[in-house]
């Protein structure tokens, strides 16, 4: 009887000791992992179709799946490629700094990439100002200080939270690439993209989806991600 009690006590002690050890053990920092969970790689969709996507990002033990990382740390790029079979088509170029800043500010509350919202689309702004001298400086100023009258009755609020260099990065991207129909961006862990082809697409043409993390990084981290973060979708004619 006594032995049994002691045995139980030892077991209880071991359990509590283990628990202390577990609590005391340093949490291993897990790297950045980005998975495009939908659509499937090498799937096929009709040209011009609008299709849903879903992305899961985890970093440092936190995941978008559980709301530990906000949805707006995810940016999806959908880019047309004439030969989706070419290995080079899967090599995702870096995300433009301006798009990363857009995802982290409140731009999307009033703007969309290609359609009107409370404010003009980035495509419309890009179309109006592409190639115009001083346009980047002017738009960066509008982002920082607010503006009104250029696009209708609404007013652009000031964004004192954005540093001048960040506002300039946004303005540079909008002016140079905002109106590029072959590269689309979407912000959020889920959303949609379009199967856009600039001209008549060949049999190997498709859209490459690349997902990016735009949240803060721990010191020393590069943002290089593991996981299934690039997906090819072939276009079909019907």
């Amino acid at each position, binding site marked *: 009887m006594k032995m049994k009690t002691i045995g139980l006590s030892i077991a209880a002690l071991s359990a509590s000791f283990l628990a202390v050890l577990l609590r005391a053990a340093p949490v291993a920092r897990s790297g950045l992992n980005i998975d495009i969970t939908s659509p499937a790689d090498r799937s096929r969709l009709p040209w011009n179709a609008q299709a*849903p996507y879903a992305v899961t990002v985890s970093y440092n033990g936190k995941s978008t799946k559980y709301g530990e990382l906000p949805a707006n740390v995810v940016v999806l790029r959908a880019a047309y490629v004439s030969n989706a079979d070419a290995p080079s088509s899967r090599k995702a170029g870096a995300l433009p700094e301006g798009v990363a800043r857009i995802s982290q500010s409140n731009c999307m509350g009033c703007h969309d990439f290609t359609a009107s919202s409370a404010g003009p689309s980035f495509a419309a702004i890009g179309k109006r100002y592409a190639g115009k001298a001083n346009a980047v400086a002017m738009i960066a100023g509008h982002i920082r200080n607010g503006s009104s009258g250029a696009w209708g009755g609404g007013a652009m609020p000031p964004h004192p939270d954005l540093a001048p260099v960040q506002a300039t990065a946004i303005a540079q991207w909008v002016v140079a690439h905002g109106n590029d129909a072959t590269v689309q961006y979407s912000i959020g862990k889920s959303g949609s993209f379009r199967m856009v082809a600039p001209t008549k697409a060949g049999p190997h043409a498709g859209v490459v989806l690349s997902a990016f993390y735009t949240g803060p990084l721990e010191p020393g981290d590069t943002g290089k991600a593991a996981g299934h973060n690039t997906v090819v979708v072939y276009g079909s004619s019907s």
Partner: protein
Amino acid sequence: MARPPEQMERRTFLKTVAAGFGASMIGATAEAEPSSAAGKRAIVAGAGITGLACAYELMQHGIDVTVLEASGRYGGHVFTGHDGLSDGLWADYGADHLTRPGYEQFFRYVDLFGLEAVPYPNAEGSPLPANNGQLMQISGKFYTEAQLADPTTLKLLGFNEGEIAFLSRHPWYELPTLYLAGHIARFHDPSQPFGNGCDDLDMIDLDTLYARQGASKRARDYLGGQHVNALYGVWRFSVMKGRGIPLSEGETFHLKGGNEEMPKAFAARLGARVKLNHPITAISHDAGGVTVTYTAYGRDEPQTMRADYLVNCISLPVFRRIPVTPALSPAKQYVVDNVTYSSHPFFVFEAESKFWLDDGFTNLAMSFEHPDISSIWGVPEIPNSTRVILKAFGPSGLSPGRVLAAFREVYPGKHDTIIQALTYDWSRDALAPTCEMEPFAPGTLRRFWPEIMKPEGRLYFAGTYADALSRGMESCVRSAARIAKEVADA
């Protein structure tokens, strides 16, 4: 069975959907269990006030309805906030007020659900009641209404002779009639902005029309109208006139307990038909019905739901992120991609007392020229509290503290008893970022009207934009009731 709208003769269809004549008379007359199982099934996308009202009306028509809402709360942009306030105080951070006249369908629901509308004088800059101590800042100086009717003052401000004569006998808000009365009188059918001898106005803005009519620069500064489609502007005035809504916009009210009492009343009656945290991820439609793909809260795998009809009550900038198969027609896609909305925050100040009385002001209803605050007004007293809620207009993105600092810079009194400032930043709300529809731009009315009112096969569209008079929550519930009837009759 009535013909589907797409088969109806165009003018008949327009008359049916126009301005809510008839449509607004349906529903809200009696609360009853579904009268008949019509055998129809409908999905409503979005549980903002439009979606909830539409689902309620569909239920009244005996239609089996499910509401899929992406966020964890219903009500969307109708949001009454309590957080951060003491004494049970609250503030409406979205839809601010109702008007009478102008909210006839909404008031039917107020009566039906036993809610109480509380007078909310001078709400959001309303000029009513008149001569209630309002002050307007012009070139740094504050003016009372009586001063703004004084010919000497009007001349100093830069109005022309005709305007001075008019404004010495009429309130400022009636100034549009000095220049547009002749145009407004040409419109007789709220469904027909075209064919009234004013079609050329589609190509210019309202400011240009005022200038053509002889308005002074000072009057044009007050009237606004830059970038506003002139035909839309004149037609809108005519629809308001037809519905008996004065240019003052009518007397203002809010609901006892906050305007979210209305979404709550709808939701209580809809019960388990409202599915929260069920975002729609794709819509496919065909001649026989609609299939919606969605995710249920906490579930990863997509699920599908089939129905005879889908009523989209999600604001269009959010709706267009959802893939629709087959794609919408180019005419409907234009509407979805180009309707523009306003989006602005209210800044809420909590004060310990009516401090302005100590400064000799009978009311706190003031407009300012400061870039960080354009107006302030008081909210009716809330029972069991001596504290006071004030609301202010300022630009989106500013901190409440900065807007309060601006108020303290321009307030013409000596002191205030404000103890905190709050806001809700709609621009960071991914699911309900937009408020009201902005006026159409010059040259675009023909592309929007009447397409904006039409269904696309089995997909129907309701919202503040889907009414001949886009005007706050009333246009939401009017379009909701109209669409519910169209679905019931289809």
